[in-house]
């Protein structure tokens, strides 16, 4: 089976300077891949490169076989990629349901199946569908953000630090939802600060440092790697 994400030797950054110095990432269908690494390693930047949010000056990015390198974000959405930013990832003054509706903005036709699917993944949200997203707790907001992205039924879901600032309880819940989402056939790529927990739950992981690949392997392999442990897992 071909990879959903095939990103090779990507070089690029926001302005003149290159933050990514050659990053290679792959993700197979229905796989959870996590990117970890110390601060400033270029984790979030690598993710934004996939979504067309920075200047890619070298390398190629393919999604499900199609070259998306350098495309505008809305074209990348059409290619089946959805992105959940780390902050400001909901419409605060819109209801939960309207947030989901905005997620499906590009879709036409009957959306009831898509709503059912998302509300089945996030039962909490169904209860609060008429509440304003800005009035929800941090964990619930993260669910709204993920739900919004899932409304397009993407092939690839990009999550930028979905557990940042959440309590361990919510972190576990988010991870469980990621597994559920994966089991519906969606590939998930996520960036995580909580490296230990993330590697334990992901199918595979990449360790980035200084804008380049450092290690890759299954979560268990990376957790067992002494170099990785010494780098940032802090023993």
């Amino acid at each position, binding site marked *: 089976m071909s990879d959903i994400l095939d990103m090779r030797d990507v070089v690029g950054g926001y302005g003149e300077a290159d933050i990514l110095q050659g990053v290679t990432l792959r993700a197979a269908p229905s796989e959870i891949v996590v990117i970890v690494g110390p601060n400033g390693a270029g984790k979030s930047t690598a993710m934004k490169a996939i979504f067309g949010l920075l*200047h890619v000056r070298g390398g190629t990015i393919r999604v499900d076989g199609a070259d998306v390198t350098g495309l505008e*974000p809305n074209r990348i959405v059409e290619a089946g990629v959805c992105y959940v930013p780390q902050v400001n990832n909901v419409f605060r003054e819109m209801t939960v349901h309207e947030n989901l509706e905005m997620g499906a903005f590009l879709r036409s036709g009957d959306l009831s199946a898509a709503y059912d699917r998302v509300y089945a993944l996030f039962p909490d949200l169904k209860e609060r569908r008429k509440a304003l997203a800005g009035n929800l707790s941090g964990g619930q907001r993260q669910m709204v953000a993920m739900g919004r992205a899932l409304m397009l039924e993407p092939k690839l879901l990009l999550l930028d630090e979905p557990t940042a600032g959440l309590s361990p309880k919510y972190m576990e819940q988010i991870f469980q939802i990621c597994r559920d989402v994966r089991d519906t056939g969606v590939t998930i790529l996520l960036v995580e600060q909580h490296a230990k927990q993330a590697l334990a739950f992901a199918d595979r992981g990449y360790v980035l440092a200084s804008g380049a690949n450092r290690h890759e392997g299954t979560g268990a392999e990376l957790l067992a790697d002494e170099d990785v442990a010494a780098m940032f897992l802090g023993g």
Partner: protein
Amino acid sequence: MEWLGFVNYAVFMAIFIGIYALLALGLNIQWGYTGLFNAGIAGFFAVGAYTSAILTTPFVPGRVGGFDLPVPVGWLGAMVAAGLIAWPIGKICLRLRSDYLAIATIGVAEIIRLVVKSEGWLTNAARGITNIPRPFGDLAYTMSQLAYLAIVAGVLLAAYLLVERQFASPWGRMMRAIRDNEDAARAMGKDVPYRRLEAFIFGSALMGLGGALFVHFNRTITPEAIDPMVATFLVWIMLILGGSGNNRGAILGVAVVWIIWSVSEIVTDRLPHEYAVKAKYLRVFLIGLMLQLVLRFRPEGLLPEPRGKGRRPEAAAQGARPPAASD
């Protein structure tokens, strides 16, 4: 006497250019250095004009004044008064984005216009203030004009040197740092609103001085002397065309715009009355269009802000533009 007429006209123009140059320097401190949008230039100009007029004219029954003070005191008073008006406005608005200052300064200019028009005890209302002394006003016409030109040139030079020195000083560097990257400047521990307030008051005081220089040249002032919107806008187009952030550019812009503005007035005044009125508004339309064209095709102006020392607000923000900014 054609020749003398031409000289007289040139001197007249030069004096106005000098006065507008003071306004443009004041605006350059506010917009060019600090990124503050003052849409009430005419208001500060009027405050300066009336303050100096009230301080220096002889006693007239029915209104405040008759202080008969020396002209330089009037000028100083004009700067202080304009600065004092700027202070509370700046205090309230400079915490917020410059849009709010733009609206508030439009309001200030409007209120000042209302006060000037309706407070007879202060400004003699529609009849205006007359007999305003002019330094060397007793000389023959041409000599008197030349003498006043020399004074205006002297004041302008002093203001220019002062502003240039401020620009090169740590204060100026700090102002540009604040303008180009407020977050970084704040992180450096600079008191951003206070610095902006300084720039706003300083710039407004220069505008008040411009008003004072005008009033002693004109010798009378009435509420109709200046069309607030056109006067304010002229100063803006002068600065933007000349090059905001560059004091020489500001003065060059004043000269270019003022010459276009006055020469086109001579042309339109010769048209038959019916067309002359329409032509007057056509000039206003074209000056508005000119701003759009400069903003689009030469936003840095004729003389751009010197590179390396700092960047224009536009350039700075373009570089810092986040990749997902709207549109």
